């Protein structure tokens, strides 16, 4: 499909041939629906003041993280992103209970309550963090790719960031270094058309982000970020390219977030008509309809899947987060520096 130059949603739903097995298709439906319900529950918890600080939700963009990471090796490949990070962490293998507990600022959170929504981490599953400086993860991701190459292992680094991050200097510095040193890194641009509250054409000279990769001679592709088959197919090409030692790749996914930039965002800058068009291309609805048409699921089984998810988030995830202890104030200064590092005292 082509994305029209003004980035309106495209209604062409034709898919040549899905590369996913029926079993995987069903699992991905379940995962994306889980992601949506998880984020919606976060919204409620924020309104209830169970979650503090900033909260950036992923609703509307689910096909991006799921399609890309399904084509990669979640839990093995090193993934890094910005502050809209809950779903990337969960897709990498982080326990959703530990994510919610982190948002509830609990000791059982995936960053032990020290990070918060924007700073989820799970080293065990190679989820290398959510970072809150726009564009900050670019060089970190290239550094992870450098480390992978030095260690001669076959993981890749995957950096998910939004379109607005590409206006930071770190984007250009990192793309340049990734290409000069031919590093195994996939840049995924989730282009949701807005940098906080400013629409892309008001802030960005070249609105098609994949074109900017050409400045560094990095192969790039733009695709519909709402269609899981298309995201997967594009990501398959991108991941294979990077893992085969061909250097960096840039993948642009055209998507949309339903909520404001964060919870403190009035969302007044968006056109109601535009929101309606994009909600008509909801990634989960599209996927569900496709699977119904393919006879893999019925509207009723979908409904019971949804019901089970909502219940499990409530009974399992929220209950865990609610009942977990807060970090002890006596441990305020823990994790600032390494503990008992022998070289601090001169190797003794």
């Amino acid at each position, binding site marked *: 499909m082509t994305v029209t130059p003004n980035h309106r949603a495209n209604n062409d739903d034709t898919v040549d041939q899905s590369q996913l097995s029926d079993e995987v298709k069903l699992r991905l439906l379940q995962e994306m629906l889980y992601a949506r319900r998880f984020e919606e529950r976060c919204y409620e918890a924020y309104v209830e003041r169970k979650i503090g600080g900033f909260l950036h939700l992923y609703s509307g963009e689910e096909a991006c993280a799921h399609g890309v990471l399904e084509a990669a090796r979640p839990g093995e490949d*090193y993934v*890094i992103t910005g502050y809209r990070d809950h779903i990337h962490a969960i897709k990498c293998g982080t326990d959703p209970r530990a994510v919610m507990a982190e948002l509830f600022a609990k000791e059982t*959170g*995936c*960053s*032990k*309550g*020290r*990070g918060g929504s924007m*700073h989820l*981490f*799970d*080293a*065990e599953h190679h989820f*290398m*963090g959510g*970072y809150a*400086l726009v564009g*900050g993860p*670019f*060089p*970190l*991701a*290239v*550094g*992870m790719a*450098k*480390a*992978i*190459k*030095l*260690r001669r292992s076959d993981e890749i680094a995957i950096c998910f960031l939004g379109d607005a991050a590409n206006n930071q*200097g*770190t984007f250009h*510095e*990192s793309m*340049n*270094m990734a290409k*000069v*040193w031919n590093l195994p890194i996939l840049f995924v641009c989730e282009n949701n058309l807005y940098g906080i509250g400013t629409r892309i054409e008001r802030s960005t000279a070249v609105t098609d982000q994949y074109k900017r990769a050409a400045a560094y001679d990095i192969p790039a592709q733009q695709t519909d970020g709402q269609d899981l088959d298309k995201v997967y197919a594009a990501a398959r090409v991108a991941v294979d390219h990077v893992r085969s030692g061909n250097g960096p790749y840039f993948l642009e996914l055209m998507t949309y977030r339903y909520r404001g930039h964060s919870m403190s965002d009035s969302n007044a800058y968006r056109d109601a008509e535009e929101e309606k068009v994009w909600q008509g291309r909801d990634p989960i609805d599209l996927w569900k309809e496709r699977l119904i048409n393919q006879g893999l699921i019925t509207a009723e089984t979908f409904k019971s899947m949804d019901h089970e998810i909502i219940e499990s988030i409530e009974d399992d995830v929220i209950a865990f987060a609610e009942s977990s202890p807060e970090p002890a104030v006596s441990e305020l200064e*823990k*994790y*600032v*520096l*390494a503990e008992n*590092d022998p*070289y*601090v*005292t*001169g*190797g003794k």
Partner: protein
Amino acid sequence: MAELMYWEAIRRAHDEEMAHDPLVIAMGEDIGIAGGTYKATQGLFEKYGSERIIDTPISENGYTGLGIGASFLGVRPIIEIMSVNFAWLATDQIVNTAAKVRYMSGGQLEAPVVIRSPGGTAHQLGAQHSARMEKVFMGIAGLRVVTPSSPKQAYGLLKSAVRCNDPVFINEHELMYNLKGDVPDEEFFLPLEGSTVAREGTDITLFGYNISTHWCLQAATELSREHGIEAEVIDLYALNPLDAEGIARSLRKTHRALIVEEAEAPVGVGSEVMAIINENCFFELDAAPRRVSAANVPIPYNHSLEKAAIPNVKDVVSAVLATFGLSN
């Protein structure tokens, strides 16, 4: 025991650490084929190759961030930033990532990077190549700051910094790379915290670090010879954390303090040492502590103005005499 220049000591530490651990790498502008602006990596490109001795583009925030990201996966980068003035560009990655990642990940990730950079005024390099930054980095939780005043320290602190699991900023000085000093032949590591007594004395403590330790030592010699004042010189080679115990220990002996820093005074090493003195040993003082600092100006190009902006040994001697109510 060999006499090495400061740059040779740094080069030796690089060489040994790279031989010791294949995941130690060095990166920076012109450090590879060109051998390093201050020769700190001379000959190592030939020995370790372009994958481990990396000539970076002129992208300070980018390559510093790259080193930090690599360190998450166990690589130990030694990052050279050609002048500390350029490190301002890398403060985002140093402060927002390296210093905070252990904490905000609840101890899961760490950034064992070393960032080396010379600060200070050399010879008419102008405002954007002559400033110092230790006052910025020493106030950042999660970031260690050390500043060697001798070849021995330059070697031993870099060795420990590479192996330490915390990010370490090493503040060097453009005028000190050719300084000579004895460095033991056998491998050794120096502590990243504490201070050393560079000269024993009983009448006043002069606190210096990096180049100002040398001004203090010269002033102490003159004070002893000309005025019969025996100054103790404490070398604050670690700026974060500062050695509060070492500062207080000396004050309990001398009861007078003068802090000497090349940087301008506001929010600096001097003000921090004074705060430590106030908090830890105020009642030991026989006179108000003083500091000798740079003028509070961007460093000028004109030689006379540049000289006037930076403290010297004479300023140190005068300040000590003033502490005793004397004048020269």
